[in-house]
């Protein structure tokens, strides 16, 4: 009687065709049964899994993340807009009237601390928002 090798038994089980023990020697039958039992264990799904509302949770987190990214982008663009606005006004004034341009620059520089504090406040708000969102995410995860 021809003896089945491990490779042949595994290949038979991989093919998924029904296999009968008929005609097999006792050791072969035992090997086949051991592999069949192992395959059934390997194909069994794990007992634990993801929480029931996992999909909803991930989607909510994604929405929060995308909103945060969009807010940050908007705020940085607004900051850039203000900066570009100042430069444009100064540029236009220097083309039309140098005195007015100089007076504008003086006025901007006189209030430099207001601008600097404004920029830092905006960054502070962004950081604070980030922390609040992260806290909310953390609570959501628990």
């Amino acid at each position: 009687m021809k003896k089945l090798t491990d490779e042949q038994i595994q290949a038979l089980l991989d093919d998924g065709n029904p296999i009968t023990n008929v005609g097999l020697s006792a050791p072969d039958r035992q090997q086949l049964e051991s592999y069949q039992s192992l395959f059934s264990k390997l194909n069994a799904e794990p007992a634990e899994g993801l929480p029931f509302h996992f999909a909803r949770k991930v989607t909510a987190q994604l929405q929060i993340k995308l909103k945060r990214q969009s807010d940050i982008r908007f705020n940085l663009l607004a900051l850039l807009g203000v900066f570009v606005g100042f430069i444009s006004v100064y540029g236009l004034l220097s083309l039309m009237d140098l005195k007015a341009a100089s007076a504008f620059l003086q006025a901007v520089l006189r209030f430099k601390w207001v601008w600097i504090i404004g920029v830092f406040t905006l960054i502070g708000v962004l950081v604070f928002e980030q922390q609040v969102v992260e806290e909310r995410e953390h609570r959501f995860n628990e």
Partner: protein
Amino acid sequence: MFDEKEVVSAILKGNFRAFERLVKQYEKLVFFVVNRLVQHLQDKEDICQDVFIKVHHSLPRFQFQSKLSTWIARIAYLTAVDYVKRSKAGLQADYPENIDHYHFNDETPESALVQKDTAAYVNLLIAQMPLQYRTVLTLYHLNEFTCAEIEQITGIPEGTVKSHLFRARKILKEKIEHDHNH
């Protein structure tokens, strides 16, 4: 009926319900991959979330050159492997490549406890195996990918996938038989 192209196109238009459908469709697949590679349960959930956020981020680049499931499984595999490498648990990947001479650690109290429950015992033995073997067993048996698809997911050549599968199953069977006889 889950239509990959329809769902992907809806997600790209900003439809979050479609994204939720995609997550529901593939959450098991991602969990199976992550579950076998990562040990800690809370980390598993975080990594699965991370995988789907990456999927959403990379979706505009998905060209349907492979099945969506294969592409998502690749992201899950790479994310989990990256996590394992960064964590201390990654030390398990340093097992010798020659698994034929591999010895399971069966002196743990846990192993003695679960030996009677063969399914749990098989999972415990798999958890002790090198990362590549765990991955191949999971993708083939739980996720039902073909060896060619496993090559696409992991980058391991198809011949090596087949060899890993054969050797892993052989030593698992021998170990269970050995424990059964003693």
